[in-house]
């Protein structure tokens, strides 16, 4: 019984952690806007924790460059399972407008596995919330498969 409660709780309490990888800030402020009164994601139990050790979902905005790819990998490794990664915006999914710049590695999936891609330049808060929901479904599925 407790096991099923835990399973249910996972979907009800996704704690997010936002990492800005080299974004132009456009997506970042939209992620923050999700927390604010208009969108209020805390309704769904989503909290921005800012510490990978407490987080369930990693939101990554922006392109990966040579310096922050290590940070990104490190943060991902420090998150306890089960976890999901959501790449936000054109840059996070593919490198976007910067993809040919000399210090750019590319999208987030060049470094860590990504579960959900949220498009947009910048992605709108609605899209980000939708992405988190899709991510939760993904990670419920992952937990099932792991059994």
């Amino acid at each position, binding site marked *: 019984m*407790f*096991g099923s*409660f*835990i*399973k*249910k*709780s*996972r979907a*009800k*309490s996704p*704690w997010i952690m936002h990492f800005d990888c080299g974004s132009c800030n456009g997506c970042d402020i939209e992620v923050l806007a999700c927390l*604010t*009164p208009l969108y*209020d994601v*805390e*309704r*769904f*139990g989503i*909290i*921005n*924790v*800012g*510490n990978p*050790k*407490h987080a*369930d979902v990693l939101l990554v905005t922006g392109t990966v460059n040579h310096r922050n790819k290590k940070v990104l990998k490190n943060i991902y490794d*420090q998150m*306890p*399972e*089960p976890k999901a990664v959501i790449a936000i915006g054109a840059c996070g999914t593919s490198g976007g407008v910067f993809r040919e710049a000399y210090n750019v590695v590319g999208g987030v999936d060049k470094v860590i596995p990504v579960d959900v891609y949220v498009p947009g330049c910048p992605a709108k808060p609605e899209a980000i919330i939708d992405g988190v929901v899709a991510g939760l479904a993904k990670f419920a599925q992952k937990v099932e498969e792991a059994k």
Partner: protein
Amino acid sequence: MDTLILVIIGIVAGPVLGGLVAGLDRRVTAWFQSRQGPPVTQPFFDVAKLLGKERTVVNQWQILCAWVYLIGAATSVALLFAQADLLLIFFVQAVGAVFLVMGALAVKSPYSQVGAQRELLQMLAYEPVLVLVFVGFYLVTGSFSLEALWAQETPLLAKMPLLYLALGFALTIKLRKSPFDFSTSHHGHQELVKGVLTEYSGPYLGLVEIAHWYETILVLGLCAMFWHTNVAIMAVLVILTYLVEILVDNTMARMTWRWMLKRVWLLGMGLSIVNLIWLYAR
């Protein structure tokens, strides 16, 4: 036998009530911030999720310390329900608090280290105030045991109004509310990441959270003792006190420990001493 039943009630009801209080707290806070906020049962989902997460630690001391923190907090609530000696309740509570700090000091993380130091300073601030509150209690009832309270005919608040205010300081610190939320904050945005809790993760963070619920019940229980003659007024007093806590939390910035030490020592101790002198003189 009655005591045993009360203790069991305390141990079981403690986290349930504590979780609900935390849920209501988030709800009211959201209301203050023009938001809707999560469902009241949200803290239970959070903790259940945490308990189901992968166990990751930096070293094994953290596991030990998280458990002892929980055990200490639960024991202190049990003692509260057993109507034991107030000082004893307080010292047992300190066992948990000290272990939480030691677990944070055991890891090589600067955030957790600094957070632990700040947590110790918080203890330094509220402990003397609490002891003085208990001394006031003794002066009124003639005993440090909670049992002695029921023989009193007038509520304690009438005789210890200033001590109740001083207790408010201790309460705010213990509940980790602004302006005293610098060792760890309920909100993630702090210069120390999550301070003393930075390195506790997954199930161990869940344990710490449950222990925190116990502590909430402990301090609210202490507040409730100030109006023991009437259950309705007791409830109103506790609810009012907690609302004031949330109000303060939402209308104050986070302060520094330097500010805290000066204010709590001067104001908190000052209020206590004035009240105690009055009690001695009586």
